[in-house]
């Protein structure tokens, strides 16, 4: 089932668009959050900050700058690891600084210099740059991977209380080869090593792509989905170039809790921004134990189906059967050619002729059809009988009817959330908008006003389905998500990661 969902959604939402605002950065650290704001740091002291994770602006240059930093939050410290050149092509090291906050306006904002945690002497099979920090959620042990093409991706254990090398005299563990920009994560009994293959720093000619292997032990070996060890060049692709974005690299996990995960990276080139390197954030999905890159929803017209009930979200109005009312009986006269959408409706302009009517000798009866393709039902066809005011939202078996088709549209300048903009959700062909009510129920209001209760956040979940949440509910403090409590009824309630009640499929009508 999950495989089906995943395949479906990767197909339906292949387009993507960039994050909003100033997003130019290269070799980004993992995006981390501090007091509600998001921070990311890049090569050369570049940094970005965002209040919502969607719209970014330039941040403050950190105290220690270098190449490809990574940041991790453990306890009351933010540790930053930065590659600093020690001279020579592969003579390098990873330095560490830490601060209690990333907010430059805070009195606690002070970067404290720590010890070097890794180095390469320019001769050995290692290039000690591109650090990636990892806290093992099962053991509390802290690790750092580093390396870049020359030689190995290496692993050292750090002290989570100090952020420094726990065993400086021990030899690092070799994990992978022919890659760089590595990082690690843990999921469901497996450790995953993410690394970037291909060439960087060539703009639209960069072959960067993120690959992954997994191991039962943090120390490896890390095998890809084909069983090839990453230390022999293996790696299953997580994400490569696509659309107008080229060269993803420098994976960083963003765990939002409740089973919702995203990842940060850079695109070597965003063609819409002149080929500059920009920050990217994508949903992280899972398929058969392997991570898969989700997509940023760009909008479109969709059926919104509940995974839980199989029924679809609609505006609770009297439905009009597509193609007109069904005729009972096996024979009878052919339905007269008539009005659009009614019995015997004329073919749409340009429509190809349909199959002969009356298969099996049923004539024009209930199995005979109209004899030509039935045009899609639009709101304009049937909305004259819809109530003018606010209407309840409901759920029903999907029947291709106009009140079951939703236009999902990003709303400019309405802000967003980590990795995505807020959307309005309207009945296709109308301005009737899905809204949260003051008692955390649902309604379809006559017109979209841009009010917070009419703005919706859509996060792709691990199985490829979507979580749909209003930006705000009047007089309601707890975040809530669209929920299919009954087959015919949808409401808003607290997200439950253990249930599929709040998992929704977006299908193209």
């Amino acid at each position, binding site marked *: 089932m999950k495989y089906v969902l995943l395949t479906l959604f990767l197909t339906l939402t292949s387009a993507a668009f960039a994050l909003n605002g100033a997003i130019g950065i290269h070799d980004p650290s993992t995006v981390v959050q501090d007091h509600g704001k998001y921070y990311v740091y890049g090569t050369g002291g570049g940094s970005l900050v965002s209040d919502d994770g969607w719209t970014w602006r330039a941040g403050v240059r950190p105290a220690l700058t270098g190449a490809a930093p990574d940041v991790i939050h453990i306890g009351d410290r933010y540790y930053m690891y930065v590659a600093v050149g020690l001279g020579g092509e592969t003579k390098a090291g990873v330095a560490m600084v830490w601060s209690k906050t990333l907010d430059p306006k805070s009195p606690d904002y002070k970067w404290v210099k720590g010890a070097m945690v890794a180095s390469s002497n320019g001769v050995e099979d290692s290039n000690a740059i591109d650090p990636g920090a990892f806290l093992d959620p099962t053991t509390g042990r802290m690790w750092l991977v580093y390396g870049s093409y020359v030689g190995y991706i290496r692993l050292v254990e750090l002290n989570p209380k100090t952020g420094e090398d726990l065993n400086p005299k021990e030899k690092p563990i070799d994990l992978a080869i022919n890659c760089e920009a590595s990082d690690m994560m843990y999921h469901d009994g497996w450790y995953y090593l993410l690394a970037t293959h291909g060439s960087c720093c060539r703009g639209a000619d960069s072959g960067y792509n993120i690959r992954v292997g997994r191991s039962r032990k943090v120390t490896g070996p890390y095998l890809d989905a084909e069983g090839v060890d990453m230390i022999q060049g293996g790696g299953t692709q997580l994400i490569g170039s696509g659309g107008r974005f080229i060269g993803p690299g420098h994976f960083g996990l963003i765990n939002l809790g409740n089973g919702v995960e995203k990842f940060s990276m850079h695109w070597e080139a965003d063609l819409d921004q002149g080929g500059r390197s920009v920050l990217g954030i994508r949903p992280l999905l899972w398929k058969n134990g392997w991570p898969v890159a989700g997509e940023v929803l760009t909008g479109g017209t969709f059926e919104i189906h509940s995974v839980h009930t199989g029924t679809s979200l609609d505006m609770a109005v009297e439905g009009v059967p597509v193609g007109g009312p069904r005729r009972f009986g096996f024979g009878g006269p052919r339905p007269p050619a008539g009005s659009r959408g009614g019995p015997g409706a004329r073919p749409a302009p340009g429509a190809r002729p349909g199959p002969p009517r009356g298969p099996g000798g049923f004539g024009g009866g209930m199995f005979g059809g109209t004899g030509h393709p039935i045009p899609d039902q639009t709101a304009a066809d049937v909305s004259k009988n819809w109530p003018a005011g606010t209407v309840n939202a409901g759920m029903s078996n999907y029947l291709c009817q106009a009140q079951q088709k939703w236009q999902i549209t990003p709303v400019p300048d309405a802000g967003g959330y980590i990795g995505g903009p807020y959307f309005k959700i309207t009945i296709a062909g109308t301005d009737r908008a899905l809204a949260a009510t003051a008692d955390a129920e649902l309604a379809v209001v006559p017109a979209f006003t841009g009010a917070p209760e009419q703005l919706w956040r859509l996060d792709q979940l691990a199985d490829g389905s979507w979580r749909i949440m209003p930006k705000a509910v009047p007089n309601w403090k707890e975040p809530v998500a669209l929920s299919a409590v*009954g087959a015919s009824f949808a409401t808003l309630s607290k997200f439950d990661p253990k249930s599929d009640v709040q998992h929704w499929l977006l299908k193209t009508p």
Partner: protein
Amino acid sequence: MNVYRKYLISALAAFIGLAVIAMPGSAAAAAKSYGSTLTSPTTPTLVTGANGFIKRWFVLDPIPARGLTRDLVQAMAKKQYFHDQYTIIPKNGEQETVDGKTLTWRAVDTKLYNVDLRHYGQAFHQPWTNVLFWAVTIVNSPREMQNVRLAIGSNAASVWWLNGQEVIGIYGDRQTVIDDGVSERVTLKKGPNVVRTMVVNAGGATDFCARFLDVNNKPIKGLTVTLREPHQ
């Protein structure tokens, strides 16, 4: 079956039901079976079990009706068929006159999660196609419960009221699915709460089920179901 015999059976059934309901606290009489799933109540109260289903109802003999669409069913729900149809708590065997026909309220318990109205029709020699049924029961809550939901299923369309307020409508030709229709958040008062429904059927099987869900959408068990309010 001729009309005389039908009325005789109805009167007999009403008498039996009255005898049972009229003696709360008395030794339980033997239940009379109405088909394979319905019985006459033999105890003053019934408690919702682990799945929370309400298994005791007054059902009124069916009224001819055609149509299952939202607009038609809503029109039926607003039509005045008999006096006090939105407020009545009948007595077992009490009768209504609708379009000149005498209809009887009958108390039934169901052995299953649902009330099978086809079985009701078969047992009481009533039609069950192209008809609508009114049913009512009383759910007694030990305390006020806020943000709960009435959750129902029906074959086919149905409209539901809680304490006089319409809270659910489901329409079209459909089968009974547990929690098909769910109300918005409602409050169960401490003490008696009246749940009322009108179920409309076209052809074939017809039944309904109902229960309350708590704030976590879990069935509420331990509610006491009766067929009369305390002052009755």
